[in-house]
């Protein structure tokens, strides 16, 4: 039995954490072959080859894979699929764009955001924003899966898998890339950070979000936000934590001025330690917080930052 794992490669760079977590997730399913794609991806492939548990790396370098457009990458995966029973990826926006397309082309179902492997055809996944956990058994010959990173530890490095260059599968010519708007940041990446500090509508403005950022920088943390904060323009979309944003499970999650709607909790309730700072003692966020502080954030957060 063999597994094909689509590595997370963006502009030639391997997202080590996301990819190594997916390797852990699928290790029990069979021999793992990692597929790297990109306009350039030799470096990413070499790095993927160091993840323990990886048997082989396929490197598909071609301009058409430069921006991971769904149609050509899905066609490539389908062209390779004959040898594999499981086709998997970390549950990133890129993979969620590509993998359902792969599944439909293979006439099989996709299983998104899987949190545990029971056996080769049985998997657990959250439904209803994590308010229920469902175990499903697939009757399909091939299983197409994305794994939720927050529930798996990253595989160690130290491996030395072989790298094989493979050709492109052709360009269906259906879509093209125009531009990326990515804010450069020195902060840790949200889904792999050990500490996350998130602000909500209570923060009140984009300017006041600096209070959140200052606390985050003191803790070497990533910055997150509620949907209300993103919708109000206080924070960019890629900071959103929740059912429809990113799912995080850091050692420490600090929720500031966030009420704790189920859609937000869906993205952070598996964090190890949760701190909530909110002026409303009835706020639902306190029901999941290990340590709750009923206070005005404009007093409490600067004080906390200065005392750390």
């Amino acid at each position, binding site marked *: 039995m063999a597994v094909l794992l689509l590595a997370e490669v963006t502009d030639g760079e391997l997202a080590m954490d996301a990819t190594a977590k997916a390797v852990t997730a699928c290790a029990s399913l069979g021999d793992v072959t990692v597929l790297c794609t990109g306009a350039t991806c030799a470096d990413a492939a070499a790095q993927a080859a160091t993840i323990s548990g990886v048997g082989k790396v396929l490197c598909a370098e071609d301009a058409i894979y430069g*921006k991971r457009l769904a149609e050509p990458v899905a066609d490539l995966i389908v062209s390779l699929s004959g040898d594999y029973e499981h086709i998997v990826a970390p549950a990133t926006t890129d993979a969620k764009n*590509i993998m*359902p397309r792969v599944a439909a082309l293979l006439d099989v179902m*996709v299983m998104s955001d899987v949190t545990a492997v029971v056996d080769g055809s049985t998997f657990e996944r959250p439904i209803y924003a994590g308010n*229920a*956990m*469902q*175990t499903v058994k697939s009757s399909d010959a091939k299983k197409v899966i994305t794994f939720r990173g927050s529930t798996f530890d990253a595989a160690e490095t130290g491996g030395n898998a072989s790298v094989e260059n493979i050709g492109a599968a052709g360009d*269906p010519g259906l879509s093209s890339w125009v531009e990326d708007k990515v804010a450069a940041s020195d902060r840790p990446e949200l889904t792999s950070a050990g500490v996350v500090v998130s602000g909500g509508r209570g923060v009140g403005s984009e300017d006041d979000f600096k209070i959140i950022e200052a606390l985050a920088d003191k803790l070497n943390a990533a910055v997150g936000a509620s949907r209300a904060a993103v919708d109000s323009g206080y924070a960019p979309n*890629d900071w959103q934590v929740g059912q429809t944003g990113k799912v995080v499970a850091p050692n420490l999650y600090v929720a500031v001025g966030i009420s704790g709607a189920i859609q937000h909790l869906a993205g952070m309730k598996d964090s190890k330690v949760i701190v909530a700072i909110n002026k409303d003692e009835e706020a639902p966020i306190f029901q999941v917080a290990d340590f709750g502080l009923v206070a005005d954030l404009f007093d409490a957060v600067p004080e906390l930052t200065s005392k750390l």
Partner: protein
Amino acid sequence: MKVLVPVKRVIDYNVKVRVKADGSGVDLANVKMSMNPFDEIAVEQAIRLKEAGKADEVIAVSVGVKQAQETLRTALAMGADRAILVIAAEDVHTDIEPLTVAKILKGIVDEEQPGLVLCGKQAIDNDMNATGQMLSALLGWSQATFASEVDIDGDSATVTREVDGGLQTIKVKMPTVVTVDLRLNEPRYASLPNIMKAKKKPLDEKSAADYGVDPAPRLEIVSTVEPAARAAGIKVGSVDELLEKLKEAGAV
């Protein structure tokens, strides 16, 4: 150009879900159901395209139980021109898998020949985030997922997508399948006169067999359980106490 908008009837997003005692799923009897919030955004976008003269007709489609009629009436009241209900299940607890939904939608696309399909990015019940991509694959069309901006211009569309790293803009060939994210627009409320008018708009009923699709699921539900609950925490009285507790817990 016709625009097809698939809308799903789901548990209302404000309802606290309860897992059924027998583990077969979530209790949906006597629970408030609504249109999937992402699909409201898709309907809104379709209506705006029509208002801008870029679409001639907006067709809402739902696949599921008979009660999905209500969801389609909501779409019609918002401004869709007509609706198609494909009955593929009898019990409100039966959810139809995205692959099946996509196959039925393909049958409808073959018949109606729309230039654009606008789906939600995910349904808030199963959070599978798959149907639009699957439909696009079956049609051999382009796809633009997680859209926060859509600009249709003749035989192509420019779409800005919300992705992990920020925003990505791509250009796709028409016809295309777009799945919409939350920030694309703010859906309108249906006015009372429009709710009345919607009752007279055409709503066709079909079955999965009409499209030659077998709705048998590929995934069997083994069990459904409540997630592990977090142990209750404590309230601290001051920033100093908070810091002390965090140090004890090894969190800072």
